[in-house]
């Protein structure tokens, strides 16, 4: 979902901008009155400013309601997975969790920084957090679909970075 939004927004605005620059480049050889064009640019600047304000304020406000951070006052759900990143392997306190239930994954790094990325059965990244030495990042997620999920390291951690993978089995909801 988020990936699709990212691609769609980037493609639409990117193509619009490319088209605008191409149009102006094509019109560069013709002559025009500098003062009139400057006045037009000032109007464009005002329109762009207020357009971006109108676009950004609701986008920022809505997206901030979708932050992945857990509130400290929330009590821990019954299913907890402790995940520790080592050079170059993952150690999970359990490798099976049920679908449809909130799971708390407590992530830390034993030696250097790692990144715990959770990939679904279609190899799509669904959530992640960093695994830092000295800190425990608390990530909560409800797995909607049973299957074999993969955990990949998403923070460069040395020679074996790309070999640092493991599995998390999500079983059918009871």
């Amino acid at each position, binding site marked *: 979902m*988020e*990936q*699709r*939004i*990212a*691609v769609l927004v*980037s493609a639409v*605005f*990117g193509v619009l*901008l*490319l088209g605008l*620059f191409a149009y*102006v*480049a094509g*019109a*560069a*050889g013709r002559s*025009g009155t*500098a003062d009139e*064009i400057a006045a037009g*640019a000032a109007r464009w*600047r005002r329109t762009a*400013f207020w357009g*971006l304000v109108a676009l950004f304020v609701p986008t*920022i406000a809505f*997206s*901030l309601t*979708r*932050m*992945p*951070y*857990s509130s400290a006052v929330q009590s821990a759900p019954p299913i907890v997975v402790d995940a520790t990143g080592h*050079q170059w392997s993952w150690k999970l306190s359990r490798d099976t969790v049920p679908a449809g239930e909130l799971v708390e994954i407590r992530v830390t790094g034993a*030696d*250097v*920084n790692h*990144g715990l*990325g959770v*990939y679904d059965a279609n190899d*799509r*990244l*669904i*959530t*992640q957090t*960093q695994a*830092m*030495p*000295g*800190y425990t*990042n608390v990530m909560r997620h409800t797995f909607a679909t049973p299957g074999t999920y993969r955990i*990949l*390291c*998403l923070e*460069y951690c*040395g*020679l*074996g*970075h*790309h*070999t640092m993978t493991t599995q998390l089995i999500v079983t059918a909801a009871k």
Partner: protein
Amino acid sequence: MTTSETPDVRVRGVETTNAPPTSAPARGVIALYMGITAIVLALLMVFGLLMRASQAGVITIPPNRFYQILTAHGIGMVAISGFGSAGVMWYFLSRYVSLSRGILVANLVFFLTGVVLVLGGIFLGGFAAGWTFLFPLPAKSLGVWGPGAAASYLVGVLLVGVGFLLLFLDTGRAILSKYGSLGKALGWPHAFGTTTTDPPPPVVVASTVVTIINIPAIAVGAVILTMSVVNLFAPAFQVNALLAKNLIYFFGHVFINSAIYMAVIGVYEILPNFTGRPWKSSKPFLLAWSATMLMVLAVYPHHLFMDYANPTWANVMGQILSYTSGLPVLAVTAIATLANVYRSGMKWNIASSLLFVSIMGWSVGVIPAIVDGTIAINRVMHNTLWVPGHFHIYLLLGVVAMVFGFMYFLASSRGATDSALDRAAFWMFVVGGLAFSGVFLAAGAMSVPRRWAVHLAPWMALDRLGALFALVVVAGALVFVANFLRRARAISA
């Protein structure tokens, strides 16, 4: 190289500014700066091509060598972007304020010394902790490299930073002695008051902003570099890993943004010579630069969104500023560029085309960057190939295009004309660059992680496409580099 008998100002970009020209000795040093920039860019772009070809399975690079190349490509591109852009800034700023040529040379010496140490640490010592040298990875390689290699890299980066610090202290000194205060050099009396005197020219405004933001950035970078070096030899001296990340990303973010802000000075100074329309320090221009100056210092937490332990208020601030920090300068610059060029009667050459494209690249690249600067989206995009996707657009087609555009301007203002090969190289660079970056974005949307030496089979079809487009970009860039080096002697004369 041919010399035009009847120079056409609009074609050759012959300078129409009233400011005195850059002095001949200084032009020689700047030509040296740009020559070094051209060679290093060529080398590092070939490194990039090799990495994509290896990920695609076309060639085989062992993981230890791959991560060394990755480290060299990353730190090298950050450093050379700053170095080449500083050359652009200095070339034009020296026309308005009295800069020290000795400091310019000192920066060159520090830079080259640092580069030798960095390359030695990487390719002789095996250091491969990534350009971000996240603490405590430099000290914990599991035997892949030793503390000596790590120290060589870290001290090398530190020396490069010292050179830049000297350079910005000198720009600050020169600006203050001419304008009396940083506020005046930023045009605040004109932005907020009713003074009727001429505002400072765009080059002074941009240089003042870069001076103000880069001095603390480099100082912070020096702190974490020094702490990392101490930790190598005294492991009991520990640094908080989250603090280290904050320091590194503050330094890195500000420094690389400053590269854009220095290089864009070339657009402000050169493009009007083609269009015949001067670039003015208008009120929106002055306000935009001051706004960006303040916001760019506080936006770096967007690199830490996935560090859940980082204070949430800082990450929220990072998201809000991701949407707003770069935009004032970018929007004002992009609209002014379009207005400057639109129906100006100009004729294109490689210099003006590259400078125009650079603003397009900067503008287009910021879109996926802002998207990724949204915490909810960053959750599934962070450290995927989406990230190099967006930064390659505004660095390759932004900063590097500005730097190459400046090189072609130096040549064309000395009478050089473009060949069919130059024009072919231009289209290879632009179209190849967009396609190459687009493949990164597509791979990021498919969740392919960044910084992986070995890719899984399902990712390799895109990798092959990426390698192919990388080859096109590199081939175009090598033509730019070869032509500049061929003309360098005439340019420095």
